[in-house]
């Protein structure tokens, strides 16, 4: 495994001898904190999350199963310089994603110019046929993007995947910060940490900025699949903090192409829907006819320009890993610049050469389905059993176009509280980029996910991952490293 050589976010490559520049005070804090006190704070954090009901459900378990995502109180820190470079790269990438979505559902110049093969768009299961020809209000499709990043060295950041469908996790960024402020207030005295609490307000502004032009005093709502959904806590948290209604499909009704919510005072017109349900469930008249979560007639209202959907239907195609593999070309095509953030080297198994390489090197690669998410259906070569590998070998041969392969990266680590003291654990990072009619903005923070099992590279909460707060240091003394 990669563990022995991994870059550490606190110690760099010094193996615990010397903190990275700018992080000396964090190292000193960690060294000074008695283990019993750390233990006490860790337990207080857990009790607080449990009693607030900050839970998520795991699919496949009983309906009533609610778990809390383990939270680790040792933060992961970015210096001001690291963050400003990342933020530029993120904003460039998200501009390109929005331009790409507007193009493929519109004139399709990128396909006509041959910059990427047409079939990966047009024959893609995530391509939204009813959306073709529809211009999203204000030209924005992916209003909220969660870009998953990993790090392998001091200046080596890689984009692992783009989440443009309905990225989740931002409530953890906010709740984790609340927990840190309560449990480790002294850290905020020794480090100059950029605040994240403006996120709900920024999100509200983004939502209302894309309301249809004719809406005078626009009304926004958050559409949730309901309280049995794994991310329901986040839905209620965000609605609450933005001061908008949290609605389910049955609370909305479409009348003559206009969306209304049912209130105790009668129907109230809705202009913007931040929807946290997938395209397939949005409208049973257009997508899955058996969906009870959506609203009949919603797509017609959207296509008539009477309501804005956030993210716009069809955005999910940008999550597709085959599209991902062309992101460098996509960024160049729409921005005319070199990509500031790099992709992980990716073998598209639909290409015979790549398939051969993948099959020959299975034990060193990570193999992923092109349309998967949540870490389901992924094979991590170095950790896979022989039987798992044979299953994937057969699947790859049967449906090569369904898979991509990537090298196993030595993900960076962060010191983490474990049963046997503080030890390095691998992390990834998901910042959230907002795009509205008012521009592209990134809140200085994000969700750091940590693989709690020793040596594990799988950070998904559904697979035993936890979270950490992510500190972005502001400029000034010690902020530059």
């Amino acid at each position, binding site marked *: 495994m990669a563990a022995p050589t991994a870059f550490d976010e606190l110690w760099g490559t010094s193996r615990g001898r010397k903190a990275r520049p700018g992080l000396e005070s964090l190292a000193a804090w960690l060294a000074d904190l008695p283990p019993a006190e750390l233990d006490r704070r860790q337990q207080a954090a857990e009790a607080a999350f449990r009693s607030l*009901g900050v839970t998520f459900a795991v699919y496949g378990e009983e309906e009533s199963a609610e778990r809390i995502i383990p939270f680790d109180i040792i933060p992961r820190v970015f210096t001001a310089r690291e963050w400003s470079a990342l933020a530029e790269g993120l904003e460039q990438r998200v501009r390109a994603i929005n331009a790409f979505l507007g193009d493929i559902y519109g004139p399709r110049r990128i396909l006509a110019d041959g910059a990427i093969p047409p079939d990966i768009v047009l024959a893609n299961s995530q391509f939204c046929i009813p959306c073709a020809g529809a211009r999203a209000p204000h030209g924005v499709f992916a209003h909220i993007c969660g870009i998953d990043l990993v790090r392998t060295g001091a200046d080596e950041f890689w984009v692992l995947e783009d989440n443009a469908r309905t990225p989740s996790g931002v409530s953890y960024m906010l709740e984790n910060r609340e927990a840190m402020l309560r449990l480790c207030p002294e850290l905020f005295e020794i480090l100059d940490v950029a605040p994240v609490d403006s996120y709900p307000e920024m999100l509200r502004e983004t939502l209302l900025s894309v309301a249809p032009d004719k809406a005078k005093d626009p009304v926004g709502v958050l559409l949730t699949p309901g309280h049995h959904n794994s991310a329901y806590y986040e839905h*209620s948290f965000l609605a609450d903090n933005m001061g908008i209604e*949290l609605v389910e499909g049955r*609370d909305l009704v479409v009348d003559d192409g206009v969306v209304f919510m049912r*209130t*105790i005072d009668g129907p109230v017109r809705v202009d913007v829907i931040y929807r946290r349900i997938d395209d397939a469930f949005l409208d049973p008249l257009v997508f899955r006819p058996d969906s009870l979560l959506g609203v009949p007639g919603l797509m017609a209202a959207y296509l008539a320009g009477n309501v804005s959907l956030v993210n716009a239907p069809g955005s999910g195609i940008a999550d597709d890993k085959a599209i991902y593999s062309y992101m460098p070309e996509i960024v160049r095509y729409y921005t005319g610049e070199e990509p500031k953030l790099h992709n992980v080297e990716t073998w598209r198994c639909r290409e015979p050469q790549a398939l051969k390489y993948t099959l020959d090197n299975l034990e060193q690669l990570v193999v992923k389905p092109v349309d998967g998410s949540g870490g389901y259906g992924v094979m991590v070569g170095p950790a896979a059993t022989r039987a798992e590998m044979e299953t994937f070998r057969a699947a790859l041969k049967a449906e090569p176009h369904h898979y991509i392969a990537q090298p196993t990266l030595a993900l960076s680590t962060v010191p983490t509280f474990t049963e046997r003291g503080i030890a390095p654990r691998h992390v990834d990072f998901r910042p959230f980029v907002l795009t509205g009619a008012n521009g592209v903005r990134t809140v200085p923070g994000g969700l750091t996910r940590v693989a709690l099992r020793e040596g594990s590279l799988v950070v998904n909460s559904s697979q035993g991952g936890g979270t950490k707060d992510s500190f972005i240091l502001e400029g000034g003394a010690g902020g530059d490293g």
Partner: protein
Amino acid sequence: MLSRTAAHLYWIGRFMERAEFACRLVEATIRLSALGHDPQGGQAWRSALSVVGAEGAFGEESEPLTPFSARRFLTLDDENPSSIRSCLAGARDNARAARTAITVEVWQAINRAWLIIRDRASPGGAQATLNLVEELKAEIRGFEGALGRMLRTEGNWFMHLGSSIERGDNTARLLDVKYYLLLPPGEAVGGTLDRDQWTTILQIVSARTAYRHLYQGPLQPWLVGDLLILRGEMPRSLTASAEETVTHLGAFAARSGRQGAADRRARQRLSRMQDLNIETIIQNGLHEWLQAYIAENAAIDRAIAEQFRFG
């Protein structure tokens, strides 16, 4: 406010009130059966089951009615929609669905009550059951306290409205099961057994002290009826519940400037009750009067659902 949210809040109010009533019913029945006039406790528990309308649901063919089986059925049985666990599960489910409309404090009180009973496998002996019920009552009081500290806006009114309707229903059912004990004045005073039963009724609605304050004499059955039906000072009386329904509906009307069928029905019910005395009720048939009250209460419940578009 979303109609669905309003319906969830209303049902939180109903379920929490029902859970509390079930707690006191179990508590008082344990006491009554311990008084020893009913060695098997059979009669006391049978009537407790009928108070919550669960005689049929108990399923005596598969399990004999014993104090233990009745305690288990009333506290933990998931098949019994009126068991304490079912009520708290219902309250919590509605609270989860309306998380944005309630305070953290309200949520935590409901969640804590639920966590106490969620994994309980057996009610245990009489003492263990009493301890369980005592613990739950403390959390439910915490819920009521949290409700009192919540913003006095629609969300609050809907929960109160739910509990006022539920409370009326519970008290009326309790009286109806025991109505034959509430003998008219002048008839032979019952024996020890009857007195214990009246005491039990008072205890279920936590009114033993109230009775002494208001009537200052020995227990008279028709006065128990007077207290629980007509005395507005008594929070669980039918009049007090009817008044509360009117008050909370009035809060909505004051906000929106509009009234509906529920307002009219609730006001008419209250004014009819204010002209009544206990003698008239008993002369015309207490059982019939209680049945009519329960039916009218259900009609008001439906009118509320319609007026606020619960759907």
